């Protein structure tokens, strides 16, 4: 009894307990744990969607997982899971009012058909988080894209490229994303993008597009994509969608569908267009009078579409322009989807403008969410089995059950400390950090054994306890600084793919060596001292 009191009076143990308490608060986001949270949390809100019109806001990228708005019920029906949400959303009809209750507010949504003709609230949801730990892509599923500029670019250009890519993803209603620069030892720049959840193929395609949009009449460019020339891009059903005048057509090789959307040009761009068209001549054809040159749309130097210009537009500085294009596919249904996807891509590029440089995809991973779940469960099971096996070895070696308890408890508290830190700084736990955790736990086990042996070994009986502990901590400290030396270069190697590994290992070893392992030494001293 006295020994237990002694343990809790020891300053090393007290320090560990204080840090554990901090970690607990950081992981749970407060005093009460939220493990029983069910329902779904809002990952992102589509731009101009039903939900955003009702005042639901996109979660800020800086918000912690537990701060995300949670949907409690829809029309009074409690939503327990992602499946509940989607089975409700599937049966939505247009022009109805939906009451959506979240943990923060009650919203009234007016449903409407979107450009694809479907009824969608415009929300992307996922199972509500139960702690502030961010599961990385390997555990949660999602898409990881590693891009590299096709030619060397300046830091400012890299920054603006990253900003542009983020904006493009936002147009698609994705806000819970990681877009960051990385580089390697030879100075090559990379852009790493991580998108949680299921991602449509068109988004991946869009990311690598430079997106240089040009509208030309003859050899003259009249306007470019981007907000300088294009002030507004229509994305609602009344001025965008499948072109009613063109519609879809089927022929022997497949089907084709035409789309359209209107844009508003800036006065300068309209003036430029007026000057160019003023020099053209009017030709008469069947169906009407047109100008001698077409308005040709180029995306990344490839012709997208060619539009005839009505004779009445000659020399007029019109700001309203209709953009059109087509999608093809083996069946009409596929052609329709392709047309709408092409439209959305083009709209996105018109809004965000072109990237300063062409990008190449160097790595693209799509991780299925169900695989991630299975993976996490399996890793936890294996961890438990390994812990049991290791405890067995330790028990056989020391034949003292009193050694096992502090060893296992301090090891678990090391894990809690790392998790607490991860939750605090908001870093994602992925495969690389799990590999890091394995190193931390492994060296942790080594160090517990070193501490135990240094205090129990025959040769040490002549030494007092203080020098035994000092000897043990000297070895551990040495191993720690040498390991630091080996890990630091990894920060810059391999396009940042090993950064998570190096970071987790360094943080884990640091909290282990500086906080947890000294506490273990103190406990062992108190327990084994005669």
């Amino acid at each position, binding site marked *: 009894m006295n020994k237990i009191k002694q343990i809790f009076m020891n300053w090393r143990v007290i320090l560990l307990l204080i840090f554990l308490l901090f970690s607990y608060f950081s992981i749970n986001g407060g005093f009460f744990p939220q493990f029983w949270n069910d329902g779904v949390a809002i990952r992102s809100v589509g731009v101009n969607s039903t939900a955003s019109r009702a005042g639901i806001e996109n979660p800020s990228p800086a918000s912690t997982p537990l701060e995300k708005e949670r949907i409690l019920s829809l029309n009074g029906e409690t939503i327990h899971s992602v499946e509940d949400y989607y089975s409700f959303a599937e049966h939505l009809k247009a022009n109805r009012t939906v009451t959506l209750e979240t943990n923060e507010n009650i919203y009234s949504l007016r449903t409407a058909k979107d450009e694809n003709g479907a009824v969608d609230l415009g929300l992307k949801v996922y199972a509500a988080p139960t702690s502030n730990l961010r599961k990385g892509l390997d555990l949660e599923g999602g898409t990881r894209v590693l891009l590299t500029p096709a030619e060397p670019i300046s830091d400012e250009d890299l920054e603006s490229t990253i900003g542009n890519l983020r904006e493009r993803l936002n147009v698609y209603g994705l806000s819970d994303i990681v877009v960051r620069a990385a580089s390697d030892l030879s100075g090559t720049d990379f852009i790493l993008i991580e998108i949680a959840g299921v991602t449509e193929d068109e988004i991946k395609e869009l990311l690598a597009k430079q997106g240089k949009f040009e509208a030309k009449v003859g050899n003259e460019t009249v306007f470019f994509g981007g907000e300088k020339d294009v002030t507004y891009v229509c994305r609602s059903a009344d001025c965008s969608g499948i072109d009613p005048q063109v519609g879809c057509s089927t022929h022997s090789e497949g089907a084709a569908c035409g789309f359209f959307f209107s844009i508003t040009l800036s006065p300068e761009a309209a003036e430029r267009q007026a000057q160019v068209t003023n020099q053209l001549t009017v030709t008469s054809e069947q169906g009407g009078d047109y100008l001698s040159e077409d308005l040709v749309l180029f995306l990344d130097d490839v012709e997208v579409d060619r539009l005839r210009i009505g004779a009445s537009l000659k020399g007029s500085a019109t700001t309203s322009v209709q953009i059109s294009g087509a999608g093809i596919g083996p069946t009409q249904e596929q052609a329709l989807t392709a047309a709408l996807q092409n439209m959305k891509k083009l709209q996105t590029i018109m809004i965000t403008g072109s990237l300063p440089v062409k990008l190449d995809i160097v790595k693209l*991973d799509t991780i299925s969410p169900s695989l991630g779940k299975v993976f996490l469960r399996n890793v936890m099971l*294996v961890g438990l089995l390994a*812990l049991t096996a290791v405890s067995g070895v330790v028990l056989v070696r020391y034949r003292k059950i009193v050694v096992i308890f502090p060893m296992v408890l301090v090891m678990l508290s090391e894990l809690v400390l790392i998790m607490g830190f991860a939750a605090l700084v908001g870093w994602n736990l992925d495969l690389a950090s799990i590999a890091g955790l394995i190193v931390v736990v492994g060296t942790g086990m080594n160090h517990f054994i070193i501490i135990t042996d240094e205090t129990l070994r025959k040769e040490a009986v002549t030494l007092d306890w203080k020098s035994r502990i000092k000897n043990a901590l000297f070895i551990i400290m040495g191993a720690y600084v040498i390991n630091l030396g080996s890990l630091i270069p990894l920060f810059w*190697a391999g396009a940042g793919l090993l950064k998570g590994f190096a970071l987790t290992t360094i943080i884990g070893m640091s909290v282990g060596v500086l906080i947890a392992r000294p506490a273990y030494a103190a406990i062992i001293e108190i327990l084994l001292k005669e």
Partner: protein
Amino acid sequence: MLQKIKHVYETKYKLLMIIPLLLLILSLVQIGVQYATTGDFVNKGISLKGGSTITITKDLSISPLEVEQSLQQQFPSAGITVRTFSSAGRVTGIAIDSALQDSAEISTLTKALSEQFMLEKTDYSIEVVGSSLGTNFFKQMVIALVFSFLLMGVMVILYFRVFITSLMVILAAFCDIVITLAVFNLTGMKLHPAGIAALLMMIGYSVDGEVIISSRLIKRQDGTELERIYGALRTGWTMTQTTLMAVIVALIFVQSEIVKQIMLILLIGLIVDIIVTWIQNVGILRWHLERKRAKHLKQ
């Protein structure tokens, strides 16, 4: 018998150092042959070479060989191979490797798979790597390792203030990595970037053993030299045992192919490290101490 081994270990330590040296030479030869025949130091997996891997963890109720044959017929130029992976002896999924890198080509492949095996989008994972990244990644790792070794050396000198320990730690890390890589090559498995991380993890584990013998042999004065070696040996052996146990358990039960490779490399590395630490490192340090004593006597 045991006494004999003990006697050889205690007295013939210089001669014994031939074993790790021989292993190192053989390993360098293996890696050299590998390089000469395939153009690479190691059998690179898709993620280091470029190409794509589709992983399915759903029971397809069809043998992987049939999947492979059927896909090879449909996509003759894609270089498709199918692997299975298992946990505790049970097949838990298949992985389809191909040389495809273009997203359009890959989506035709996934579409064909989805139709054939009724897969949902969430049933499979895809990893696509451009060939430039792989080559670059490998080169980067070598540069990073050189820096790692140098920094480690500096840290050891700062900590122990003895040059020989620094040399020993770097040499041990080098031997661990080279020999483990050679043994890994012999298994015929393909290296994943996580496997490279595993090679680096080994440095972390082996450093613990090296610091123990260095501090017990050089810094301490209690007991005889041999007593101190055996003391360190006992601690080191317990450490190796616990890690080996954890690694073997993980190797049997873990489903993720990537974690499995990490564990396999750690297993090889741990066994290699036993030889490197207890023959090579102990030998170097004893040699050093012997020379120091001889110098002392002369004075």
